[in-house]
């Protein structure tokens, strides 16, 4: 119910639905506070036993109230009601039930608890073997899991961002705000990040007095001051969820989650924060106590009951008992009593303490042995035997410093026996995280104020920054001490340790009995702390329980560590904008526009889009276009954009020595204006890349690489330049994007180019023979480079112009080529022609093949050192039976070949032992009228003419093929020299 005099009731009224029913709340509510105010008791079902569960906490530690938020593609499962800022039109529903949340058929599991305790599934479901996937597992899978995904693409937008600061302050409670005020005075950049939509942290939930006024006054002043400072930035609705190396933190900002209208702005922003230091003012999280039937709706953390009452005016019940092992529980009793609610009793597990409130009935040294009310607590029974009728039980097992982030770099928490609490242990490295306030294990406000002053001022002193004055605040006085009475001894199978994963005291006992005693084994066997809350409210209970069983204490038992993220974060938020078509950038070639106009079909080649073929009217099938492009090129002239090949400008006095070293073959004696084919190995002697390198001047070369390897080759060349041969004068510039380059191939290529170049005589066969190159001008003075190289085996050139002219040149070549019936061709025709000619490409140089495999071993010069030279001499590279590059034709010429088929000698079975090689590249050759292939087969060069089987078991196909030379056309190279 709602306290009608609470200030929240003056705010805007909001309507929302939960499980299809309409309710009202106020601006400033969370979904959880609004549900409590509307007397919604059961919000979900537990993971395993499907027990009815209510809201348990008021923050991101919530184990029970996981709901499905939104509808259709916006549906978001497993959302913690305690973290959802209420908005008008919100739609939420419970999850993980069969039937309805109030009547769940799966609750049968609760009755089977004895048979399906920790790890039961390891001991059964093994027979018969086939039944696992067919029967047992599908049942288990359907029963497990929490919410449902919509199965539709996430329609929201997400973004990322980068923030830099000197001081990152996580949390805006009193210690966070004080730290910010102090550190801001040093002039450093301060970034305050607050998970909640309001600033102030715990102060919002308490009735504390600061400087004689309600603490909210002080928050207002502090925030106002901070907002006025230029060097302070505040992000609310933002959770720092992970700490990484060297002061890098990740935070998720909920930008539009609290707005119903689907905004065009991103829903969430994943900030990467770079900071010199982090002040961790993340407060503390209350823990539960394990006792029989401690999971009923209406049993809540005491601090959360207080939060709902103080901050939201929302009461879960009106007859309240408090069960505590520490002083803080009593404060809840006081606050609620002051609001006029009936406090049935404070039950404090501690004997021999002074009652902390005289006006409230209390029981000291007693425990709760039983609770009543399956769908909402009705009564509790004490160890003394008395039974109290209650409609809400506030439980406090003490407070745990919220040190999640300090564990992300594997910092081991250390046990503080004083406050029964794990503190940040650091991890021996400068991890740049400095806890303050409750996160540092200081729980009383007057001490938090003095300690925060002390910690931050000494930090400022250590950093030799300008010293601010300490902040003098007077406050209410708090008192806190805590016991470790966390686990009940009766009815262990109904005493819940981990509410979300339904881990009971009995499960801990069973783990112990079966030898799973180390904390890690306990976690893995019982699933303690492995739910979506990472056991924020329960881990200590499990450890206390194990300590009790082992007869030792918690610090001996140790703890598992928290792993990032602090709260679960949408996978989309990590992807940001890099999804769909924007998953990776798209690179377009200079001829892209012209090609689009000619209806080219494009293909992804790495990040490039290249024209694959250019369909013409009436062509229905890709092969028709490709065959035409090949034939037209071989008969006359074709033009293909080859800009994507890597181009590296190499200049310097020692270029030729450098090239001799990075290629296996020699380049020093390459004359100016000539091109040479080069082979690169990796240092392990395996073939790496190939391409042509042209010499434009004494100290100037242009290297080409394959498209795929362009950045890698540059990286390796830079390695050689800087790390292996730093005394050479060599400079490397990638010019892939700077030059548009087109292959002009076919018998009419020279005639076409002669129409373009400014001095046609310069490129006659005599002046410009095969493997010549030259810088020249075209079209009336435009700088260009011409290379007489041929991938297709035809008379062919590659012509390069500065990229800005590329589009126009492609157009010009096609229009000037009309008289020759010039054709643009795409990567498919390019591939067909190179296979016909027997040139290798990525399918052949795949990182596994050697120069020897490729039949290029003679290219490894033994006159000079080169990368990979020595290790290519190893025995395994030079065995007589290695597979070598060969050509293959189907014996029945009308048969199709498939790349990836394996080669088996005729009459042998297709087994691994009989495997002799494979087909690497296959094409239909329109020139020859049948399929052809390049491939590798053992001793291929000696087996020309032999017939073997190309086996494609995936298609259950065997094709007889003949081993031939890889050069299917013009093996003597007359055409390219013509």
């Amino acid at each position, binding site marked *: 119910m709602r306290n009608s005099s609470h200030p929240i009731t003056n705010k805007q009224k909001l309507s929302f639905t939960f499980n299809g029913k309409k309710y009202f709340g106020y601006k400033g509510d969370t979904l959880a506070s609004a549900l409590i105010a509307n007397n919604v008791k059961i919000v979900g079902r537990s993971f395993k036993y499907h027990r009815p569960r209510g809201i348990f906490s008021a923050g991101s530690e919530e184990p029970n109230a996981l709901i499905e938020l939104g509808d259709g593609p916006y549906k978001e499962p497993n959302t913690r009601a305690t973290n959802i800022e209420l908005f008008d039109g919100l739609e939420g529903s419970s999850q993980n039930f069969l039937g309805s949340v109030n009547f769940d058929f799966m609750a049968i599991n609760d009755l089977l608890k004895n048979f399906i305790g920790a790890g039961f599934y390891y001991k059964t479901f093994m027979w018969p073997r086939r039944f696992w996937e067919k029967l047992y597992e599908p049942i288990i899978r359907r029963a497990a899991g929490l919410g449902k995904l919509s199965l539709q693409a996430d329609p929201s937008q997400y973004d990322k961002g980068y923030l830099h600061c000197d001081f990152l302050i996580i949390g805006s409670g009193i210690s966070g705000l004080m730290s910010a005020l102090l550190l801001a005075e040093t002039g450093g950049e301060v970034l305050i990040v607050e998970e909640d939509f309001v600033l102030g942290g715990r102060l919002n939930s308490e009735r504390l007095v600061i400087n004689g006024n309600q603490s909210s006054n002080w928050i207002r002043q502090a925030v106002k001051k901070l907002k006025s400072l230029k060097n302070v930035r505040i992000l609310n609705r933002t959770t720092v969820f992970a700490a990484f190396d060297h002061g890098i933190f990740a935070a998720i900002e909920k930008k539009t989650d609290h707005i119903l209208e689907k905004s065009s702005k991103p829903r969430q922003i994943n900030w990467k924060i770079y900071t010199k230091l982090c002040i961790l003012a993340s407060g503390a999280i209350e823990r539960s106590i394990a006792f029989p039937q401690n999971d009923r709706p209406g049993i809540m953390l005491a601090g959360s009951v207080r939060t709902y009452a103080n901050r939201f005016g929302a009461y879960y019940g009106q007859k309240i008992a408090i069960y505590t092992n520490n002083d803080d529980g009593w404060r809840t009793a006081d606050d609620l009593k002051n609001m006029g609610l009936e406090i049935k009793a404070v039950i404090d597990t501690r004997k021999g303490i002074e009652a902390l409130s005289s006006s409230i009935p209390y029981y000291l040294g007693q425990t709760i042995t039983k609770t009543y009310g399956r769908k909402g607590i009705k009564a509790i029974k004490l160890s003394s035997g008395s039974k109290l009728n209650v409609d809400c039980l506030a439980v406090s097992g003490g407070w745990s410093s919220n040190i999640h982030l300090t564990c992300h770099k594997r910092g081991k928490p250390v046990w503080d026996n004083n406050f029964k609490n794990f503190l940040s242990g650091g991890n021996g490295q400068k991890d740049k995280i400095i806890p303050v306030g409750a996160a540092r294990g200081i729980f009383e406000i007057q001490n938090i104020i003095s300690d925060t002053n002390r910690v931050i001022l000494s930090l400022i002193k250590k950093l030799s920054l300008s010293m601010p004055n300490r902040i003098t605040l007077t406050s209410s006085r708090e008192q806190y001490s805590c016991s470790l009475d966390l686990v009940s001894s009766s009815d262990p199978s109904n005493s819940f340790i981990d509410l979300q994963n339904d881990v009971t005291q009995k499960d801990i006992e069973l783990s112990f009995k079966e030898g799973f005693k180390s904390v890690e084994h306990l976690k893995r066997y019982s699933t303690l702390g492995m739910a979506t809350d990472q056991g924020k409210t329960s881990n200590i209970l499990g450890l206390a329980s194990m300590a009790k069983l082992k007869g030792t204490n918690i610090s001996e038992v140790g703890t598992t560590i928290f792993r990032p993220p602090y709260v679960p974060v949408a996978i989309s938020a990590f992807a940001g904008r*890099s999804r769909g078509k924007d998953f990776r950038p798209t690179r*377009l070639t200079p001829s892209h526009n012209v090609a689009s106009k000619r209806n080219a079909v494009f293909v992804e080649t790495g990040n490039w889009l290249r024209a694959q073929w250019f369909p013409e009217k009436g062509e229905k099938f890709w092969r028709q276009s490709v065959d035409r492009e090949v034939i037209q090129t071989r008969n006359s002239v074709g033009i293909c954009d080859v800009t994507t090949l890597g181009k590296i400008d190499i200049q310097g006095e020692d270029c030729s020595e450098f090239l001799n070293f990075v290629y296996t073959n020699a380049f020093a004696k390459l004359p100016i204006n000539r091109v040479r084919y080069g082979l690169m190995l990796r240092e392990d002697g395996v073939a790496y890349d190939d391409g042509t390198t042209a010499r434009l001047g004494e100290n100037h070369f242009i290297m080409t690489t394959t498209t795929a390897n362009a950045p890698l080759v540059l990286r390796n060349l830079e390695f050689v330049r800087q790390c292996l041969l730093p005394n050479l004068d060599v400079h490397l*510039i990638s010019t892939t*994007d700077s030059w548009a380059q087109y292959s002009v191939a076919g018998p009419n290529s020279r005639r076409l180019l002669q129409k373009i170049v400014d001095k046609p005589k310069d490129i006659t066969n005599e002046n410009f023979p095969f493997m010549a190159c030259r810088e020249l001008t075209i079209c*009336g003075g435009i700088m260009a480079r011409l290379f007489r190289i041929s991938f297709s085996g035809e008379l062919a050139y590659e012509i390069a112009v500065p990229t800005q*002219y590329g589009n*126009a040149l492609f157009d010009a070549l096609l229009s000037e080529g009309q008289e020759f019936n010039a054709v643009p061709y795409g990567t498919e025709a390019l591939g067909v022609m190179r296979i016909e000619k027997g040139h290798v490409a990525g399918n052949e140089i795949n990182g596994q093949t050697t120069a020897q495999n490729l039949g290029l071993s003679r290219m490894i010069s033994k006159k000079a050192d080169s990368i990979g030279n020595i290790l290519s001499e190893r025995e395994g590279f030079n065995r007589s039976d290695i597979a070598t590059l060969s050509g293959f034709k189907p014996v029945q010429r009308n048969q199709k070949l498939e790349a990836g088929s394996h080669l088996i000698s005729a009459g042998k079975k297709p087994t691994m032992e009989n495997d002799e090689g494979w087909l690497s590249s296959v094409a239909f050759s329109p020139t020859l009228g049948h399929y052809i292939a390049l491939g590798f087969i053992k001793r291929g060069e000696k087996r020309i003419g032999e017939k073997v089987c190309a086996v494609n078991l995936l298609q259950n196909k065997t094709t007889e093929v003949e081993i031939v030379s890889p050069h299917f056309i013009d093996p003597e190279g007359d055409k390219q020299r013509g």
Partner: protein
Amino acid sequence: MAKLDLKIKKPLDGYSKVINQIKIAEYQFDNLISLAIPLKTERKCKLNFKKSLGEPMPNIEKSIINKSGILGFRIGLDLLLVCNPSHSSFVKKTVPSLKQAFYITDQTGGWCGVRVDGDRVIEMLERICPLNLSQKIFAIGDVKRTIMDHLNVIIFRETEKKFVLFSPSSSSGSFLKSIEISSRNI
């Protein structure tokens, strides 16, 4: 033979747009060349640079602009970029002069410039640029190279709220989209 006229195509065809008060426009230039400093000739190159461009050769991550509006960026220990927006004698005079000391590579077509200008530019850049944009770290006239949205970008700060971003021309469409989305998302 009929003389063919090859028309220049700028990567973004002269794009210009205002989104959320941020002016986004293709930064056009006539020439962009890189200068590599030959091994152990830093002194000679410094003299040549001063002589050719009239300004001292900048230190790494710093820039100069000369009276003809020509920009010089030092992007590596032995590497500079020189960008000529529109000065007419650049190719005929400046380049041959620089050639006497440096190795020159023409990169005019290789890079695409985008100028972003406006009060909210920092907010926008925060969404894609991992660098610290505080003027204490990234002063006016500084030039840095980094990665934005998977792309290599050279970022040059002209004023407090005005930057020029150079990215590879082949992917300039994707990069422009990144800038547009960033501007829209703030």
